């Protein structure tokens, strides 16, 4: 059933966020610490186990895949509801400061990524078009 996949996903997110809140509380932060990251690790682990046990059929998988494929449209909606005016009118310090930080951070990405270079830094195979990409991302 498709709902099994959706429910699995929902359970992972809720538990992840709850654990994130608890970590935040433990270290005295009024914020969720890594809730989504924990949820993702849980999903990866659970899917792996369930597949090994043969408990995850095609239709259940489809419930997770559907939400995964809605990811880009959701990001577009997110972009359309950002406070862009606030960023643009923040004055020179906001714009210069933001851009300098982004520029330096970009420059550092290859430096750190190189630390773990080897066969694990292989580029992903090219993608043909949208449809195959969506199919591949769940392979």
């Amino acid at each position, binding site marked *: 059933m498709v709902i099994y996949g959706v429910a699995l996903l929902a359970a992972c997110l809720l538990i992840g966020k709850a654990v994130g809140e608890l*970590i935040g509380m433990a270290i005295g932060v009024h914020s969720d610490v890594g809730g989504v990251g924990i949820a*993702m690790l849980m999903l990866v682990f659970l899917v792996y186990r369930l597949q090994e046990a043969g408990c995850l059929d095609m239709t259940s998988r489809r419930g997770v895949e559907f939400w995964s494929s809605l990811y880009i449209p959701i990001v577009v909606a997110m972009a359309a509801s950002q406070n862009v005016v606030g960023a643009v009118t923040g004055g020179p310090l906001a714009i210069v400061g933001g851009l300098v930080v982004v520029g330096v951070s970009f420059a550092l990405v290859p430096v*750190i990524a190189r630390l773990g270079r080897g066969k694990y830094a292989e580029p992903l195979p090219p993608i043909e078009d949208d449809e195959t990409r969506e199919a591949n991302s769940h392979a």
Partner: protein
Amino acid sequence: MLERIHHVFAGNGLITAFAVVGLLMLVCNFISKYLTAGRVHGSAIAIAAGLLLSYFGGIYTGGKHGLADIALFSGMGLMGGSMLRDFAIVATAFGVDVNELRKAGSNGVIALFLGLFVPFTLGGMMAYAFGYTDPVAVTTIGAGAATYIVGPVTGSAIGAGSDLIALSIAIGLVKSISVMIITPAVARLISLNNPSAALVFGGMMGTTSGVAGGLAATDARLVPYGAMTATFYTGFGCLLGPSVFYLVVRMLLG
């Protein structure tokens, strides 16, 4: 009559948002295919178009949520809000390769700490260069250069005024939006084409929306790796900003 139809769209906000975003993606994929010969990815154009619409929405309503402040498009805020965004981000983990994660995990942690240290320091230095010498101001602005959530959380914890908090949010917004736009353009230049680099990228940038948008426009398969480290960033930033960072700044500026 027009009012009744308007009511249908506004009353079914989320559904309207699905239809509008679908249409927007259709147009943007068309532009990508025929105007840029596929060189610029359709999702990159769609995200940029979303930001542009958000700008006009903000100008039109004077609100803080871009297009979502217009009643007709209020569902955009729900569709692009943190609830559905986090749900979809977690779903992308379905395609994650556990081995990739294990091998690149330590790089992600290094990136996370450096990713917090660099904006704190640079942001603080920029603030000082622009004439802010008060430790509270320097800390708040530096924290804003981490993300637009770390900035206000840090600022209110150490007693910054609302003008400083607004400024720290503005820096964070500039960061987030420029990451969304610049990432697909420079991805090749910084070898952002593998899971290991994406993990580092997420920890380095930290802005979940910027990383999510930037990677989605670059290669959607990289999203889960980048998003995973980015989601730890804000929490640790909120922890380190008002404590370690503030203490260091206060020590330096007396």
